């Protein structure tokens, strides 16, 4: 078998925010580093992040601190988060943001010249460092431009087929470079998965073609455990019209800047239902909500800035009860601020330039003058590789994970802005600890049989006699997940989904590729199917197991929270026979000092 071999101390799979930050840190730790990108460098899904990076810098409101950020994150995640990760994240995020500035990032400024912070859902104080509504681009470009001078090797447009192991330890990865379709073996002392999300398992999603759960599934197949897979974030505001833009994200920043949600009757329906834990922090009238968005420290948050899971369900309710817009969504209006503000149109264009551009160009809507039509879109996976909070190492020694493909920090629901800070905080930690691990242990060698197996699996779609179109299978999978394991779930439908997935698995074994190995998107689609099927099954099984409603997981047959599920997480792994095995694990008791923080902040 023909393949090229590369060797590194640390191999990073994925070049979004987490992968780049990990690679930078591993290099700084003296490791030789290889960085694999699924696309070109700088195109990863991080560029789509719009609103900002959550960090308690306290530049805009000096009442903010890591403690408030920690409590907000736990409340948003409905207390099933890994509290240690939430603590580390809240404590370290400010340093990670300041570090970006030292590497050349240019955030929007306060009047006294510091990093400006904006309001976002579930964050008590203005906390998101941002650049208009293109913060993700700023972050990835800063990391990219800093990283390329740090001595790492970047391998672009590379598809990973398998994570290799040796005696239960990660030993590297095997895959092919897309341009020529040639196989490559990467031997490494430690492997970091930073592959992002899995939104492509759903029909309506904000994710690009890359978000097929690769890291989740590669880790699972290598023997690692996944956790919290039932928790999917449906972002409340995706574009819904015209059809071709369905799912594209509309930043929460619109609401942070004063945007309001209206049903077709013109009613501001978010005032209708305010969850108990947020009642004393939420405005009960429009006037107070507006003052909050304009920086009045005595005012409470408008209900549009409640957590994403709640806002998405309220929108769903309005549509279901017949008060939705023409195309099955609701209205998001920022143009109304003209009544409150001189130069409102300029202000909107300055604070939300890419939203202005996106609606103008793709939907013929001028957001400074008219409302946008929006509805929920599959956005983010709270679940992922089960990692150690301190080191980000998975249950497979030498295999690390960071960013969206790792899990723990977000619990049942992620707060907007916590993703970019998660990438930085835990990307850095993964890089640091992977470098240390590679230094402390010899480099393992994967046996040739594993490599042969990975190669033959990768080439299987070229075998003659296959008839299934991989794009059609992907489409059917997305349709089933959207219909049966979406924003509102019920046991019968999820059981039906398991049946559909079994059928799709059979069809996927007959997926055919036309043409040859050079830059063949049909081939990539066929291989992505395996990942999508694995994560879809994990989502569905865990969602059946959690018989309650919490955060991003809403069960019509169990619409309330259940105490027994509030103290445990669901873990999934591949059993010896190949079947998916679930177990419940108790959440460790929180130390007294963190409990006290939460109590203080719930007042």
């Amino acid at each position, binding site marked *: 078998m023909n393949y090229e071999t590369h060797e590194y101390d640390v191999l990073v799979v994925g070049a979004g925010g987490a992968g780049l930050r990990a690679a930078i840190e591993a290099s700084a730790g003296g490791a030789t580093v290889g960085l694999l990108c699924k696309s070109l460098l*700088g195109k990863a899904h991080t*560029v789509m992040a719009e609103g900002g990076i959550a960090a308690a810098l306290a530049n805009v409101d000096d009442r903010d601190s890591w403690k408030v950020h920690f409590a907000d994150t736990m409340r948003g995640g409905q207390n099933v988060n890994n509290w240690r990760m939430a603590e580390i994240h809240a404590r370290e995020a400010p340093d990670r943001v300041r570090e970006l500035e030292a590497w050349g990032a240019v955030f929007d400024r306060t009047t006294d010249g510091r990093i400006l912070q904006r309001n976002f859902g579930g964050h008590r104080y203005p906390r998101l460092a941002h650049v208009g509504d293109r913060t993700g681009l700023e972050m990835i470009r800063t990391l990219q431009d800093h990283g*390329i*001078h740090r001595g790492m090797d970047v391998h672009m447009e590379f598809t990973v087929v398998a994570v290799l192991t040796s005696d239960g330890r990660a030993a590297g990865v095997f895959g092919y470079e897309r341009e020529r379709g040639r196989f490559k073996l990467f031997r490494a002392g430690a492997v970091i998965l930073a592959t992002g999300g899995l939104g492509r398992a759903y029909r309506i999603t904000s994710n690009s073609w890359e978000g097929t759960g690769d890291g989740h599934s590669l880790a699972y197949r290598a023997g690692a455990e996944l956790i919290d897979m039932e928790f999917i974030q449906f972002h409340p505001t995706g574009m819904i019209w015209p059809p*071709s833009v369905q799912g594209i994200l509309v930043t929460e920043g619109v609401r942070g800047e004063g945007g309001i949600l209206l049903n077709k009757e013109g009613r501001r329906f978010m005032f209708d239902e305010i969850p108990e834990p947020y009642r004393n922090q939420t405005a009960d009238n429009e006037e107070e909500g507006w003052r909050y968005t304009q920086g009045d420290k005595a005012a409470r948050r408008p209900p549009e800035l409640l957590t994403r899971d709640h806002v998405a369900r309220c929108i769903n309710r309005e549509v279901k009860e017949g008060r939705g817009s023409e195309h099955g969504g609701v209205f998001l209006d920022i143009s109304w601020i003209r009544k409150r503000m001189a130069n409102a149109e300029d202000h909107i264009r300055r604070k939300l330039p890419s939203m202005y551009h*996106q609606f103008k160009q793709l939907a013929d809507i001028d957001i400074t003058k008219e409302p946008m039509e929006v509805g929920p879109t599959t956005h983010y996976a709270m679940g992922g590789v089960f990692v150690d909070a301190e080191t980000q190492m998975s249950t497979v020694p030498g295999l690390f994970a960071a960013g969206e493909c790792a899990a723990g920090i977000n619990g049942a629901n992620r707060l907007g802005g916590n993703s970019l800070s998660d990438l930085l905080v835990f990307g850095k930690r993964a890089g640091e600890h992977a470098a240390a691990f590679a230094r402390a242990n010899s480099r393992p060698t994967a046996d040739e049989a594993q490599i042969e197996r990975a190669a033959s699996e990768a080439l299987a779609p070229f075998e003659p006699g296959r008839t299934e179109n991989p*794009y059609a299978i992907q489409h059917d999978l997305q349709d089933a997940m959207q219909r049966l394991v979406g924003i509102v779930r019920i046991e019968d439908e999820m059981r039906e989904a398991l049946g559909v997935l079994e059928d799709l698995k059979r069809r996927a074994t007959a997926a055919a590729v036309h043409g040859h190995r*050079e830059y063949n998107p049909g*081939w990539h689609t066929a291989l992505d199917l395996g990942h999508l099927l694995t994560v879809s099954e994990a989502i569905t099984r865990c969602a059946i197991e959690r018989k309650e409603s919490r955060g991003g997981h809403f069960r019509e047959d169990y619409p309330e929270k259940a105490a027994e599920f509030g103290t445990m997480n669901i873990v999934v792994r591949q059993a010896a026979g190949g079947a998916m095995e679930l177990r419940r694990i108790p959440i460790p008791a929180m130390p007294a000092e963190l409990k006290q923080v939460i109590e203080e902040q719930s007042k």
Partner: protein
Amino acid sequence: MTQATFRVWRGDGTKGEFRDYTTGIVPGMVVLDAIHQIQATQATDLACRWNCKAGKCGSCSAEINGKPRLMCMTRLNELPIDEPVTVEPMRAFPPIRDLVTDVSWNFEAKKKIKPFKPRTPDAPDGTWRMAQADVDRVQEFRKCIECFLCQDVCHVLRDHAMHAQFIGPRFLTYAAALEMHPLDAEDRVSELRNLHGIGYCNITRCCTTVCPEHITITENAIIPLKERVVDRFYDPVSRLLRVFRG
């Protein structure tokens, strides 16, 4: 359903041809949707790059009816669809397959530019102070999504293939973002002249015209850099002073 024909370039590094595909179109569709539809139903191996589908990542650059554009931001209702819509790869870069080109030169060009080097922090806690007014112009350049359409349309690269001597509008904009960064303490002026070939730009503004982010590349980035080069190397008074000072 309305039908439209797309005349798509199919080929590899050595040869290629246009092939016609007819597909149904619905209101609001962009060129990338049509390419995806063709890919899913008629030509599963049709190679193209894309990621965000919202004009934010700069992956799906192509030449549509002869104009360098992002496929994801080109609405079909802006094009005359009673005739075939031609879609071909960027021509300033070596072809790989179908709509995919080898843009690796761009990553090499960027690496040659001296990286950001901040001045000493302003505050004891290691942070800096910058006014919004002072970062506005840098933020304009930092909107760049690296789609390389400006490189594609630049005649120095496209017609004269001077990739070895000239970094192109994208990286002049990148250099401008660094040079005009309020915190940056590096000096790139002599490299701009000697290594990056800024003199080859004769400000035809083609780059500015095609920029999907509407960055005023020529006036705001390139001309001010040219002025810095001129001030440093061609100003008669400072030349004279250099003679005396040695």
